């Protein structure tokens, strides 16, 4: 049987990195094909090509045996290939039918044919088992799950042959996931091929008929469900050579402080200060039952001075929300948030946190991390300009000197410290963000994906800096999607899954596979049982 969609030898080069390196995929008609792989494995790039958003440098694509080379997303749609994005792309102020039929509305004499449009929309909705939804309803009145149904109906209305679902369940509750699965099954039954990108193995097992695993821009495993088991999938996803080297850390540090997480209450406990000899066990940051409904529930952990504490978890698991709440960027409830043994729940502005010695590096460098349209100097000193100011007046030379000191300490490459941050490469921009933490003399570093999207050399420098800070007694909270990095850098790692933070364990107790399994909630082995 001719595959519905056949991709072979796809290559895409971005500068010196190869996003796709001979990627391949075969999808049968009427199948639900799971596409999995770690972040950066090349899934999005490949799907982007299929949907017409990207052009391959080399390789071949065939749709029902015919050569297929969409010029743009619109061309892909007319050929029957539709990508349903992670973030929905609906028009919130328009009605359900207007959204479903956007661009393909029925007209008579140049005027919209309302009865016909409603009929077609209802037909599409009925195919997915949602006859009850009135096509005249405004889309912003619908739940996220129903909005997703509308989004998929769009594909149905143009008689799509291939529908690409990019992490469709990441924003859904369990009950809505069931409804989505029912929709996907109806699509498959109607002969549509569904490519289903997901990280959640249990979902894949439930819905998919075939699976392709990608790694480093290639297909590393293809098979059918349930023949391929979880272990094989995880092994295929992670089985890469470790290409990064992580800084050496002294063995005593590496062993990490107080291993077991305290089970009881934290009130009144003055840990580490008792004998006053080894500052190691001093708890710098202590969190008890922090919740940001519905994204984070009852997170508790301690980070010790000099410790690098990793938080692993999939995107959307709540790890970024947790860190943002700690920094005062999200409202939260907690039984205790203690910094250097002072309860800081009362003051929840970022400025208060900065004063208490907390520094934050956002995962979104361009939009939240930096003022890209302002100078390097301004960005470095932004969180604590007062250092070089007297009664509100900034001493420009002093400010410049301080900023340059910290930029150089970070190994930032720049021609002129007065240049705009925008003119720097991603890696150097990130060093500016970190130089800010040096400048504000942060003792507790909250780093959310500090190495995302930057080159290898800059990564190494940033690792070095983080380890150095820890050696000097800073407490580091290190959030990352890139597991080798967590394993290589952290003393202890806690896994976050669907808003719950598991108790932390020593990094040495995890393997990449066991960490990934814990994050995805696969048939959970205890980490120690994984060889």
């Amino acid at each position: 049987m001719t595959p519905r969609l056949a991709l072979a030898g796809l290559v895409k080069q971005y500068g010196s990195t190869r996003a796709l390196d001979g990627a391949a995929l075969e999808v049968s008609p009427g199948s639900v094909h799971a596409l999995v792989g770690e972040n950066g494995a090349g899934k999005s790039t490949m799907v982007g090509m299929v949907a017409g958003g990207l052009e391959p440098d080399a390789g071949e694509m065939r749709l029902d045996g015919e050569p297929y080379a969409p010029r743009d997303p619109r061309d892909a749609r007319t050929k029957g290939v539709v990508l349903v994005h992670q973030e929905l792309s609906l028009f919130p102020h328009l009605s359900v039918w207007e959204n479903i039929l956007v661009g393909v509305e029925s007209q008579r004499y140049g005027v919209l044919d309302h009865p016909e449009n409603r009929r077609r929309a209802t037909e599409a909705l009925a195919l997915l088992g949602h006859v009850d939804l009135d096509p005249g309803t405004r889309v912003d009145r619908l739940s996220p799950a129903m909005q997703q149904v509308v989004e998929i109906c769009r594909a149905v209305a143009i008689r799509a042959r291939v529908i690409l679902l990019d992490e469709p369940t990441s924003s859904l509750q369990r009950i809505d996931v069931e409804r989505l699965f029912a929709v996907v099954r109806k699509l498959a039954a109607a002969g549509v091929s569904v490519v289903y990108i997901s990280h959640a193995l249990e979902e894949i097992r439930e819905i998919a008929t075939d699976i392709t695993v990608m790694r480093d821009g290639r297909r590393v495993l293809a098979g059918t469900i349930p023949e391929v088991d979880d272990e094989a999938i995880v092994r295929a996803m992670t089985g890469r050579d470790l290409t990064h080297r992580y800084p050496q850390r002294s063995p005593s540090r590496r062993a990490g402080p107080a291993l077991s997480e305290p089970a009881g209450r934290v009130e009144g406990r003055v840990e580490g200060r008792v004998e006053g000899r080894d500052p190691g066990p001093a708890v710098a940051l202590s969190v008890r039952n922090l919740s940001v409904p519905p994204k984070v529930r009852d997170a508790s952990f301690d980070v010790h001075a000099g410790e690098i504490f990793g938080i692993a978890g999939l995107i959307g698991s709540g790890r970024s929300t947790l860190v943002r709440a700690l920094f005062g960027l999200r409202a939260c409830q907690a039984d205790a948030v203690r910094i250097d043994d002072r309860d800081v729940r009362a003051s929840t502005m970022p400025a208060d946190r900065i004063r208490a010695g907390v520094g934050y590096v956002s995962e979104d460098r361009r939009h939240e991390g930096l003022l890209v349209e302002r100078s390097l100097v301004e960005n470095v000193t932004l969180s604590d300009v007062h250092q070089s100011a007297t009664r509100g007046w900034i001493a420009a030379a002093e400010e410049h000197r301080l900023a340059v000191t910290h930029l150089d300490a970070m190994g930032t490459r720049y021609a002129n410290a007065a240049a705009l941050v925008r003119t720097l490469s991603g890696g150097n921009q990130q060093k500016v963000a970190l130089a800010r933490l040096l400048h504000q003399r942060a003792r507790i570093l909250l780093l959310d994906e500090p190495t995302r999207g930057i080159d290898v050399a800059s990564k190494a420098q940033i690792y070095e800096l983080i380890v150095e800070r820890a050696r000097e007694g800073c407490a580091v909270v290190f959030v990352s999607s890139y597991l080798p990095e967590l394993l290589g850098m952290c003393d202890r790692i806690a896994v976050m899954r669907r808003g719950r933070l598991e108790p932390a364990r020593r990094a040495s107790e995890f393997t990449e596979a066991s960490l990934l399994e814990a994050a995805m909630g696969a048939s959970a082995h205890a980490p120690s049982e994984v060889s």
Partner: protein
Amino acid sequence: MPAMSRWAQRFAPLIGLVIVALVFSILTGAPERYLSLQNLRVILAQTLIVGLGAIGMTFIIVSGGIDLSVGSVIALAGIVAALVLRDGGSPTWAIAAAVLTGAVVGAWNAMLVTRVKVIPFIATLGTLGAARGVAKWLAGERTVNIPDTWINELAVTFPAQAWMLVAPGIWLAAILAVIASLVLTHTVFGRRVYAIGSNEVAARAAGVAVESIRQRVYVLAGALVGLAGAMQMSRLRQGDPTVASGTELDIIAAVVIGGASLNGGEGGIAGSIIGALTMAFLRNGSQQMGWPSYVQEIIIGLIIVAAVALDRWRTRQRTA
């Protein structure tokens, strides 16, 4: 090349002003008259009110906001000052009352923007109407006549003391412009005004108290507009509740011609003052040419669009 483009960026408004002055010097055929001290005094006196407003508006626009209520607030502050004078208050009190009135309206705008969370465009559009109404109400829908005091000399075209060269109000405005420029570029407050206008989210994440900065910006700008109201009253020698209608648009135009971006994060006092002067030179030149006022309006309209289009074009050049 980058040094060159930054140079062009900084001096483009000034070059624009020089071009306007030169063009009219030639057009009028009498540069010695158009650029005479006499005529410069006239132009400066005509710039005074827009210039004062532009100082405050620069803070607001750089911070990413907008204030459409200025024209009405000038009238309202002028009426308050006139009423104080009429009821026997001293000129100093009258000016203080005008400044305070402006600051109070600024605080009202700030409250709407930062607490009620109405976008600045709508909040100040509402104030534009309301402040005009209050001005008419206080004035009993008539002009308010004032006794003859030194306040009338504040904004005259030709000062009584020849050694002053220009009216005391213009000196005051110039000093305020210098101070405001230093505040914007050399203080923590000014730095934060740029920061929240450039990227509010990032500023917040760096610990900047965004709401508090916004409040101070609107109050500060309001106070300056209040002073402009006192100057307006001084020029008219009476309080007029219908005066300065549409002035806010001249002020915004001055700030934009001066290189500010309505998206925030860009702009400066010097540019805004140059923008205000450019428009005054244009008006004055057109008058000297004997052109009807609609010609001025058309030219100024085109200049605003050209200034912004040029700025966009430069930005694209930089990013390309």
